[in-house]
């Protein structure tokens, strides 16, 4: 079969350096994850270990390690994880980093906290994917351990945006070059399946405003509603759960808040 042009476009995770240029500087959630990790304790009161599920190039994980937290990471993308490994090795951190699918992985340790940051859980595209991932993570938690998931929340106005219009998601200066990088996203949405297919373009723009390079990729994100999240945690065997609408435990009341879901193993 001849691949269509769309099939030849790779994942955004095939170019981890570019990904980091665009997104590694995101700071909005770092303090929250540090607090979640610091408050994690194992039986006996010792500091608990943290597993970053979907750790990518280590945006959050490296900061946890830098703070002296015992943290490991998995990611399904070999290029992303290789970069995380290189960065951790360069900084001299002791950590276990594995290329693994969150729906089906086996690690020897059990963790006080598993964290799923910045929409990593949206990579589970079907209820089956979601349940398999939640069960597999559950299996890797200590008896008193918890999973913490951060997800953007879908709103009626989001679903009503026209499909295919390019949206400028992020723009940064390329240090020292006078160039800028722009991340454009064309979104194609299915509100019943609750997913968004993105056709992404990262454009390097020179000082004259001319695009000197364009990198294309595509990805799918599957959004989750709050009651659905509770049912998923319940069906996956979590003993109790809480849904918050922000980093300070505030209630989730409006779709313009993020959803932070906690699921306890027992």
């Amino acid at each position, binding site marked *: 079969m001849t691949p269509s042009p769309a099939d030849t476009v790779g994942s955004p995770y095939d170019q981890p350096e570019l990904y980091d240029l665009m997104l590694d500087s995101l700071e909005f959630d770092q303090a929250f994850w540090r607090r979640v990790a610091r408050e994690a304790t194992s039986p006996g009161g010792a500091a608990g270990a943290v597993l970053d599920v979907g750790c990518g190039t280590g945006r959050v994980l490296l900061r946890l390690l830098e703070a002296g937290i015992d943290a490991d990471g998995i990611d399904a993308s070999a290029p992303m994880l290789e970069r995380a490994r290189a960065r951790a090795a360069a900084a001299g951190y002791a950590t276990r980093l594995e290329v693994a699918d969150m729906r089906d992985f086996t690690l020897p340790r059990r963790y006080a906290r598993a964290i799923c940051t910045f929409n990593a859980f949206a990579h589970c595209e079907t*209820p089956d994917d979601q349940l398999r991932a939640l069960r597999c993570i559950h299996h890797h938690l200590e008896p008193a351990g918890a999973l913490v998931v951060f997800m953007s*929340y879908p*709103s*009626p*106005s*989001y*679903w*009503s945006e026209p499909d295919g219009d390019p949206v400028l998601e992020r723009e940064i200066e390329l240090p020292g070059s006078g160039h800028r990088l722009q991340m454009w996203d064309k979104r194609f949405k299915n*509100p*019943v*399946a*609750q997913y968004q297919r993105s056709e992404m373009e990262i454009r390097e723009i020179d000082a004259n405003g001319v695009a000197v390079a364009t990198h294309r990729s595509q990805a799918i994100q599957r959004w989750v*509603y*709050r*009651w*659905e999240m*509770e*049912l*998923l945690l*319940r*069906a996956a065997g979590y003993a109790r759960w809480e849904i918050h*609408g922000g980093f300070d435990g505030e209630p*989730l*009341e*409006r*779709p313009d808040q993020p959803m932070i879901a906690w699921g306890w193993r027992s």
Partner: protein
Amino acid sequence: VSETTDLFEPRIYDAVYADIVVDIPLLVALMKSAGGRVLEVCCGNGRVLVPALEAGVPADGLDLSAAMLDDLKAKLAARGFTAGVFEGDMRDFSLRDRYALIVIPFNSFFHNLTQADQIGTLSCCRRHLARGGRLAIVAFHPSAPMLIKYGSGDPVPTETAYGEGKLVCWDSAAQDRVEQVQTVNRKLQYFDSAGRLEREETMSFRMRWAYKPEMELLLRVAGFARWEVRAFFTSYREPASAVSGRAPIEGDHLLYTAWNE
């Protein structure tokens, strides 16, 4: 002068939903295919149950409203039909029979306002199914444009014929888009044949919508092992369109079928 009333007052229910007929032949066909006794949960005063009995379906009905059931009993008596008519709460009822098919039409499942209510209803229905029996729920899939339209605060009118005149039903909704609950504030205006306003009535009721993946998880958690979801029809106020074979889209009325295996 505006009088406050209740959606489940039979006279008012019949007036407001007089033109809601699109689903009746689809449901009657489904009930005829059941191969055994059928229970309609939230049967009200018989909008669906009476045509089903007319078509020869062996069917019973359950509803929470005594007023609606009294009206149903009068209709059945006038036609000489016999059917079990049970006053009960869909979350927690107990009947002697086990059914080949239980149907919950017309978004009535969305009267369950909490997750515990939803799961209670599904579990209770499952317990009342014969082995191999089916639960069939017809409920809309929310559409973002409709949520925005009804949630804007501006009342949305719907006109229905009423006697020689017309009935205009104004709906606006206060929505909690995370709770998935909307409080529908409804004003009914009855106009005579000359277009003069005869009277106004207001009412308010709450419904909790559910999304398709959420509904499927509810069925799973309630103990069903197999289910399917398809588009049933597009709108109560439009002719039944051919939706068979196409994937559900937002705004569709979906048929959720779950088997008790």
